[in-house]
């Protein structure tokens, strides 16, 4: 059992402080991952809060068979896609808002991505299709296994493998030879 799942077990047994540990470990990454779908850090934060709220409301829905991180990312992705469907996200945003979002996105990126290398890849991911970008984020930024990433994305491991292969080729064409080295 992973550390977050352990903390969640303690939370279910009545230790309220354990929830803070889960938040500290997973919240930032989840917001960053969701932001990859919704491209709005505030909405991403909101969705992440809802995903965490699921852990409190539906206490027996998580069965400890996968890591808590995988489960939370599954919930987060599903909620993000719901949000996109609901809002039919348009690209028309006020310039002032867009400026604010860019600032927040940069802050979020700084928080979630450890080094400059990852930041360069993340910038290039904006040019990739949603599924490809999500696969790269899960496997290379969140350090999930192919199986875990496949679970989060609702795909098979082989499909994730294919997505990553194609993502590498795309990144190579965007970033040049350097792209292959970054991943």
């Amino acid at each position, binding site marked *: 059992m992973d550390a977050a799942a352990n903390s969640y077990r303690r939370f279910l047994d009545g230790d309220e402080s354990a*929830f*803070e540990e889960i*938040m*500290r470990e997973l*919240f930032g990454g989840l917001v960053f991952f969701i932001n990859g779908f919704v491209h709005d*850090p*505030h909405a991403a*934060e909101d969705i*992440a*809060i*809802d995903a*965490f*709220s699921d852990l*409190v*409301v539906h206490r027996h829905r998580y069965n400890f068979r996968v890591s808590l991180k995988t489960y939370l990312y599954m919930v987060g992705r599903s909620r993000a896609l719901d949000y996109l469907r609901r809002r039919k996200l348009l690209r028309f945003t006020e310039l002032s808002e867009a400026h604010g979002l860019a600032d*927040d996105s940069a*802050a*979020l990126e700084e928080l979630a991505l450890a080094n400059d290398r990852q930041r360069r890849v993340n910038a290039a991911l904006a040019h990739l299709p949603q599924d490809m970008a999500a696969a790269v984020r899960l496997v290379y930024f969140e350090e999930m296994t192919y199986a875990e990433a496949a679970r989060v994305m609702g795909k098979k491991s082989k499909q994730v493998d294919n997505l990553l292969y194609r993502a590498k080729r795309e990144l190579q064409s965007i970033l040049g030879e350097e792209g292959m080295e970054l991943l």
Partner: protein
Amino acid sequence: MRSLQECQAEVFRRSEKRIRARRRAIRAVMVCVPLVLCITAFSLFVLPGPADTSDGSGAKNDAASPPPSICRIDVSGVGQVTSITDEGRICAITDALAALNNSPGAELSDGSDTAGAEGRTITLLAPDGPQAVYRLTDDTLTNVTTGSAMALTREQSAALFALLAPEAAENP
């Protein structure tokens, strides 16, 4: 962007809200389900169903309609009209007429002429007007409403006359 503490507080605030909403929904279902069951049971067992009138016999003839729908029977004989309002007698007469109507093989050919014979006219009256009119002679009962006539045996005829006679009211 909010701090981690603020986010955690927001998580708990939303969770509380969602838990309260869930409890409310569960409580509503807990109230609604027995209520619906009670209403269904009440409508099935307590309220009278329409099955009695839809069994196909209602269309056969008017005399077969249930006795409570007939509130009075007028019997007109030779120059006199008698009204029967006693519920017991009404029931007995309508039952006898219904039995005769339903008895097989007793029917005469339609339009058989009984006008010349001496007899009585029996009018079954419901609150909303006449339901059926019969013409009774010594050996024939004619449903004037439908135009069908049936032959009666001497005993059947005597029994009907006895029921219609004013003395029957005194010795039912």
